[in-house]
């Protein structure tokens, strides 16, 4: 190359080859890091999945190792394919065949172990009686669907309250000036930073005095109160991004302030509302601390409590079934995330000023 430069004319081909090589090396390194880095995150989920669909009384790991033994080489092979094959159509073909082979091998290796028995809690109302060594617990356990319904109620109501309140509050904070507005905004942030756990005793007492102890309503109100500061802040950020003159334009066009809000402003913060809604729902869905402290009656159990009691309370717990329940519990979250992914990535938090 120095010779080429000395000759006054760089060797473009050599330079291009070198750049290509370097690009490939970078990509290879990136794949390695990603695969290794995601392993600790992926393995627990994989374990949950494999135990749920194959475990029999207790948490055996045979299926997990077998699955990994098939999937890991397939992943490595796939990375190599992506690096080596440049033609897009051939790459797609290779990928397809690799996927098919992996599935076949996987089926052959773990197929015999698979069964749906761990999911019997879905159709067996009195689940405790089907467990070994759980005699006498009897109908202390409600059907899982009761807990599922409770969780849905809790997360859903909480989500609606958070979205509606934070939308109006965010709009007001974004558009109107009032005394103490700056302090209010700072207060929101501080409230958000406050660890909720430290409030458990006062909240317990308040719930007791107000008479909302052992009710879903009480828990919903507590979570809404804790979730709102951040949600309001996020919504204010979204409203800040909506130009002021669009609203003014609507009002000179004959709309009232309310019409301008609903017809012109609200459609532009739809993404923000969806994001806030998803996070609020998931927050309610995964809630554990407050349901654990504020709820006693098993008819009020949420999924998290159900899971807790199921693995804690019964002698000789069937971990395979608990895993299946765990899977059943995370499924709605995963579905929601996948559906709303597009919106969630657009969420940003506006600045405090403005």
């Amino acid at each position, binding site marked *: 190359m120095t010779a080429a430069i000395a000759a006054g004319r760089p060797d473009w081909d050599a330079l291009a080859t070198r750049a290509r090589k370097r690009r490939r090396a970078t990509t290879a390194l990136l794949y390695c890091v990603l695969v290794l880095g995601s392993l600790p995150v992926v393995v627990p989920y994989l374990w949950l999945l494999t135990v749920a669909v194959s475990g029999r009384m207790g948490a055996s790991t045979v299926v997990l190792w077998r699955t990994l033994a098939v999937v890991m080489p397939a992943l490595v092979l796939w990375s190599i394919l992506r690096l080596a094959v440049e033609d897009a159509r051939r790459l797609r073909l290779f990928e397809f065949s690799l996927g098919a082979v992996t599935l076949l091998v996987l089926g052959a290796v773990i197929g015999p172990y698979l069964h749906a028995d761990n999911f019997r809690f879905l159709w067996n109302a009195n689940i405790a009686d089907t467990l070994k060594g759980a005699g006498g617990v009897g109908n202390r356990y409600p059907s899982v669907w009761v807990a599922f319904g409770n969780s849905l109620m809790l997360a859903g109501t909480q989500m609606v309250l958070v979205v509606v309140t934070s939308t109006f509050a965010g709009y007001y904070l974004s558009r109107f000036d009032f005394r103490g507005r700056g302090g209010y905004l700072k207060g929101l942030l501080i409230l958000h930073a406050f660890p909720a756990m430290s409030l458990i005793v006062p909240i317990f007492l308040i719930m007791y005095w107000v008479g909302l102890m052992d009710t879903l309503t009480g828990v919903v109100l507590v979570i809404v109160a804790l979730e709102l500061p951040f949600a309001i802040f996020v919504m204010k950020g979204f409203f800040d991004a909506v130009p002021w*003159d669009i609203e003014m334009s609507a009002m000179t066009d004959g709309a009232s302030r309310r019409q301008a809000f609903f017809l012109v402003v609200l459609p532009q913060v739809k993404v923000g509302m969806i994001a806030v809604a998803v996070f609020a729902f998931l927050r309610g869905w995964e809630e554990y601390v407050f349901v654990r402290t504020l709820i006693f009656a098993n008819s009020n159990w949420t999924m998290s409590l159900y899971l807790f009691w199921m693995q804690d309370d019964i002698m000789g717990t069937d971990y395979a079934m608990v895993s299946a329940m765990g899977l059943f519990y995370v499924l709605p979250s995963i579905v929601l995330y996948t559906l709303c992914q597009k919106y969630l990535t657009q969420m940003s938090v506006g600045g405090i000023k403005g």
Partner: protein
Amino acid sequence: MAKIELRRVAKSWGEVAAVEPTDLTIGDGEFVAILGPSGCGKSTTLFMLAGIYTPTGGDILFDGQRVNDVEARDRNVGIVFQSYALYPNMSVRDNILFPLRFKDVDKAAAAARADAAARLVQVHELMDRRPGQLSGGQQQRVALARALVKEPQLLLLDEPLSNLDASLRLTMRSEIRSLQRKLGVTTLLVTHDQIEATTMADRVICMSRGRIEQVGTAEDLYHRPNSVFVAGFIGSPPINLLACSVDAGTLRVGEAKLRATGGAGECVLGVRPESVALGTGPFRGRVGDLEPHGRETIYHLETALGPLRALEAGASARFRLGDEVSFAISATLLFDARTTRRIEGAGADMPA
């Protein structure tokens, strides 16, 4: 269509006065432009007419009726914002239809009116697109159609052309102008581009720091500016403004003495660049710098009067850097330095 009157209208934000008490009358069907530098209160004035801002003093009258407390939505004013402010969640058609939603117009009639408005500004082929899929010029036309569809009694345009490229601006300028003539709607245009203001409007209002400096035709503002500010703001390249003093008919400027007609004490002498005629004349100067513009050349002269800009038409520059040139000046303006007002009939164009 309406006749608009402002009587001592003022607007302040706390301590800051955005618009000082202002009197102004806009005739029915007239096209008036507000011209002024950034932050002088143009948009504020416009928004007060639209009803978006409430004046902190004075009265706004539409056809003799006080409208201060009438809400924006009841004023029947069409407005085109600087950013166009189209509703991004609606199609072009729905954008144009939007003002009619709040009027007592049945669906078929509304559609017909929207179509006519779109045709007027030639966006009828884009009706199903979203504002985000339009170019700047198309968005501007849609905004115009939306403002016109409600048949407003007053059309307000807030720097509608400032986001367009130079050639589109030229076309839109004449299009808006001819549209306004055709419809006869009273129109107020806000701009900081003097060419836009002078070419489009019947009358130009020159504003500075919340105050109206002068109202007049382009010719008035150019040849008979009321104040140093107007003289300096109108005209490109800008007028030469030289501090001077006048005593008993003698004007001292720099190291030179001129014969003055009118004026006394501390003054400011204004000389338009094109009023400096190069080649022959009683003054001498040296070419310190020159800017060839193709059609004309701007010379920066160093003279006994002080630095002077001179504009000469013609494709090629007659003088070079460092040349000594003779020149004459004419049509000078003289301002009182303290009040900054122009002294009527005063000037100085010959050495004493």
